[in-house]
């Protein structure tokens, strides 16, 4: 018995940019015989394997974990390994994520993101580390609940591509970096909130957010960065007020 797989031809309009030849990005059209159960990434892989091996884009895990394959599909930031072909019509436009410089075709430059990411110190900060023989740091389920949602971020950068503030203010830390900083500030094992809140109170940080909520609309992992950013605003204000009142600041 043979299994017949139904295929439908769809037109992919893909942004191309070769930094050695092109002044500005252009588009190229591909006709792709798509299976109904394909994701957008499957179609790009078909193009790469069968039609045009010069097409460049990032992908890795194909299971919504690595966050590499974020692209703009019909104008919306999408994780292409999660984005089903059947949710679109006969023509699908694929472009690099908005708000990022483009290195080649669908590949964006994310060094700027990594700098913002590191500036919030996304690791556990302890005033004094416990010796190994004293055992692990323990945490109750309620303490875990306070930050678990925000730790689900996969750094796919879709939130940056959707954010209108990122498009206008280059110094804005952006949703994912603030979310991660807030995640560590909310972790009962961490003692670095005062350091991070100093970063949060600087120029282009939490208070640049105008709560458009687009970051949360496009987040493929339901992290809700808008909630994290606005909770971080509240905490940064409390931290600042405490630093005025208490003799040793908020430390």
């Amino acid at each position: 018995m043979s299994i017949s797989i139904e295929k439908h031809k769809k037109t992919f309009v893909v942004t191309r940019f070769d930094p050695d030849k092109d002044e500005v990005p252009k588009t190229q059209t591909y006709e792709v015989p798509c299976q109904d159960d394909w994701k957008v990434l499957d179609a790009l892989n078909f193009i790469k394997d069968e039609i045009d091996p010069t097409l460049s884009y990032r992908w890795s895990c194909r299971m919504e974990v690595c966050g590499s394959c974020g692209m703009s599909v019909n104008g919306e930031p999408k994780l292409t390994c999660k984005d089903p072909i059947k949710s679109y019509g006969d023509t699908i436009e694929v472009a690099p994520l908005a708000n990022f410089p483009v290195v080649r075709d669908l590949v964006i430059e994310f060094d700027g993101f990594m700098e913002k990411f590191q500036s919030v110190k996304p690791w556990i900060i302890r005033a004094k580390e416990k010796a190994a023989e004293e055992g692990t740091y323990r945490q109750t389920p309620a303490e875990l609940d306070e930050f678990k949602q925000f730790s689900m971020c996969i750094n796919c950068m879709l939130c940056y591509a959707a954010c209108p503030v990122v498009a206008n203010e280059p110094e804005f830390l952006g949703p994912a970096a603030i979310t991660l900083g807030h995640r560590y500030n909310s972790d009962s094992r961490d003692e670095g909130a005062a350091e991070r809140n100093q970063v949060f109170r600087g120029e282009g940080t939490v208070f640049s957010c105008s709560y458009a909520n687009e970051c949360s609309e496009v987040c493929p992992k339901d992290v809700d960065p808008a909630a994290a950013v606005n909770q971080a605003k509240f905490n940064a204000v409390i931290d600042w007020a405490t630093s005025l009142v208490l003799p040793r600041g908020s430390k």
Partner: protein
Amino acid sequence: MRPDVPAHPHAMQPSKPGSTRTAPPMRPAKFPAGGNYLRYMLFDATGIVYMLAGLVALGIVWQLGNGEAAWAAQMQRLSNPIYVLFHLVCLASVIFVGVRFFSLFPKAQPPRIGPAKPPPAVVFFVGLYGAWIGITALLVAVLAGGIF
């Protein structure tokens, strides 16, 4: 789809340029009037309506200081259809901003308020909408002469 519009040229640029030339960043394709952005832009645009409402209010206060005749003339002007339309726009703006603010407010709460966790979102909704309806009813009662 509309043609690409450039974002700020330094948006998401690293502090040191890389070795490869890059194409400049583009704005989100649906900004400012497509998808959810329209709701956000309308929300921000209501600031203009509030500014105009403030100017109208200042004008009314000014006329109040110019005597009874000026006040009566001002009241007469307020019955002009343009003023009525403006106040309907103000009402629509307030309702729109209130609904949007109330929908976003609960999730902006910190994980803890003092020792306690914030109440569930439904409590915020009931409290906020309840306060809104209660204060509106009180104002209507005052304006209708039912109180004072």
